[in-house]
């Protein structure tokens, strides 16, 4: 009871703080001298956001960049952390896996999502068919990781299987397999989980985009004698190019940052670690914040061009409109 009371009190306090700050700003802006009123108004209302951005984004980013050049005891050590990252076998495996993830997940999710969207377009029960594929999006990565860990579960051949896949294998007379232990294919089994989640996202966006392709264009191309593949290749694809870029880049960014799935399913063991997981492990478990920060920096540099590209494509589209 006291617990709920305490939480309630916290909510009230948070609201009061918010009201207090806004009230103060409005009061001060209102009292400002007439001559510079516009500037002060702008500055006053931008300040909270700017301060929060500084404290919450710019400062940590600068701090992390600095940390990346220090060792475990906080002394500057030049580029040692980066040397470690690109020479140690365990770190190299991490980079390799991240590349495999970022190539396969966006590609497979988009291809499956697009194919599904095209095939169920205007089909009977389209909404239900869509919902089925979209549903995994509603599950958190950790939840999905736990579900798939159970799917891949292993018991010895002489014992009753608890994992669905191994139960199937045994039913077909095969030996059960340790899906998560055998490198390098175990990375693929983890990637399947991510694709399972992201396909729904790709499908929903692309399906909407396909419906936005003008029917006259498709009609005209058909009258010109284009077969279904040519219609799809030369009319539909150019028509949904913008959405394709958004889907691909969004999934790529999500994939670069993937952490939960790897951590819940293998904890980065058996050569399945990725950059984000290794970053956490080094910084918070191994007591090597410098290495963690260096990995974070690399991750940031990898994500940056994709974000820039995404923003540029969006702006170009706006200009066309």
């Amino acid at each position, binding site marked *: 009871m*006291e617990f709920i009371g*305490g939480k309630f009190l916290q909510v009230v*306090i948070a609201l009061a*703080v918010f009201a*207090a700050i806004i009230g103060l700003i*409005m009061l001060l802006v209102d009292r400002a001298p007439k001559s510079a009123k516009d500037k002060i108004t702008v500055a006053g209302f931008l300040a909270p956001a700017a301060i929060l951005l500084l404290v919450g984004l710019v400062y940590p980013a600068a701090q992390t960049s600095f940390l990346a050049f220090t060792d475990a005891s906080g002394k500057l050590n030049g580029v040692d952390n980066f040397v470690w990252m690109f020479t140690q076998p365990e770190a190299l495996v991490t980079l390799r896996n991240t590349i495999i993830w970022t190539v396969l997940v966006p590609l497979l999710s988009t291809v499956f999502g697009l194919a599904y969207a095209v095939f169920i377009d205007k089909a009977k029960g389209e909404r239900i068919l869509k919902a089925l594929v979209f549903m995994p999006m509603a599950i958190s990565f950790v939840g999905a990781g736990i579900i798939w860990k159970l799917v891949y579960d292993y018991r010895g051949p002489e014992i009753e299987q608890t994992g669905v896949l191994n139960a199937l294998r045994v039913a077909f007379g095969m030996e059960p397999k340790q899906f998560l232990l055998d490198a390098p294919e175990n990375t693929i089994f983890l990637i399947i989980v991510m694709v399972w989640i992201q396909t729904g996202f790709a499908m929903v966006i692309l399906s909407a985009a396909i419906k936005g392709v003008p029917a006259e264009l498709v009609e005209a191309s058909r009258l010109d004698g284009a077969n279904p593949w040519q219609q799809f290749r030369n009319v539909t694809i150019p028509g949904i190019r913008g959405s394709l870029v958004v889907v691909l880049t969004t999934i790529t960014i999500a994939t670069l940052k993937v952490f939960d799935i790897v951590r819940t399913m293998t904890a980065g*063991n058996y050569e399945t670690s990725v950059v984000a997981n290794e970053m956490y492990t080094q910084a918070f*478990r191994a007591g*090597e914040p410098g290495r963690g920060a260096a990995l974070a920096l690399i991750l940031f540099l990898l994500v940056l061009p994709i974000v820039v590209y995404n923003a540029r494509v969006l702006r170009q589209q706006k200009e066309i409109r």
Partner: protein
Amino acid sequence: MKNRKYLLPVAVTGILALSLSACSSEESATDPAATADCSKFESYGKHDGKTVSVYSTITDTEATNLEKTWAAFEKCTGATVKYEGSKEFETQIGVRAKAGNAPDIAIFPQPGLMADQARAGNLKPAPQAVSDAVDKNWSADWKKYGTVDGVFYTAPMLANVKGYVWYAPKTFEDKGWEVPKTWDEMLELSKKIADDGSMKPWCAGFESGEATGWPGTDWVEDVVLRSQGPEVYDQWVNHEIPFNDPRIVEALDKTGEILLDDKMVNGGFGDVRSILTTGFQQAGQPVLDGQCAMHHQANFQAANWPEGTVVAEDGDVWAFMTPPVDASKGLAITGGGEMVGAYKDTPEAQAFQAYLASAEFANERVKLGGVVSANKGLDPANAQTELDKLSIELLQDEETTFRFDGSDLMPGAVGSNSFWKGVVAWINGTPSKEVADSIESSWPKS
């Protein structure tokens, strides 16, 4: 702006509410109804109106039991103990010490962190009274773990015991198996069970989320201590010999005679590698189901058995200590425990530190159940379970060599990262030497 006259009051109220909220605090111990005999507390002096702040990792029921125990100290000395338990202790204690906001007393879960704090000059050396109490109540092994660079800082409090081998007494009786007295006997028994064919001799599970592999480090530590002796164990833990020293590799191979043999493991789950995908909480279950004969785990395994399981020599499940390799050298056990250090040298803080090292504290706390202590003044009759009693007797035995869990003493980069990962790779098929080399290369240089 018509309503601007309301703005000032709103702002003021908000600020007031904010400042008031900073005053709310956590609830403290509820049960001061200790009917203690205050004559035992005379030596701690009177500290009326003084407060001792205590910070540790211990929370929930365990924390309540601690507070109940020292209520008598509060009543008799007049001091108030302000306790705060947090799962973030390990990261927070360093931050708080740096910020000048350290507690009076900190209860460290492992010696490594304590040693860091002592070397940083944050901890106060223990006063003579604490040192005397530890000399009287604890073995020299324990005092050593509270000593950093020749200065004694922290007194031990409670303990846990690792290296138990759990088995079902009824199965052993039915099959005519004897509890082994030496490592070789244990290996012989394992082979006998494997040949018997009704069950596999061992079951194990190292899966523990991101900490996967730690139960395996306990195995290796037990074998290093028993096969190579306490001196080599200390050198290994302190990195005076490299992790890939031939003696350590030999101990790994010795462990592998059980863990890496498909005939020996993994009862109820599958082959050797199924150890990696079996959760450590579930790994002992096949002992009860008659699918495996033995399971190696610390005393806290008692809490992992299903409800209603009788843990006793004549019950459903019982444990024997992993036997020594050379029986003539006596029993050597690994385990863990808390260390009580002081950030302030006020009389009340020192009195409290001495009290936590005393036999009175150990007896009263153990009576409440769930824990044991290596305090020699502790009466085993106060133990609440058969297993606690066995643990206390093992800890108090003059012949017992006690060593702290090695992975807790190694630097975090090894003890809670590469050692775990190394064990995982080892079970997954990487040769012992290669695993030891890789762990050695991860040892922080400085």
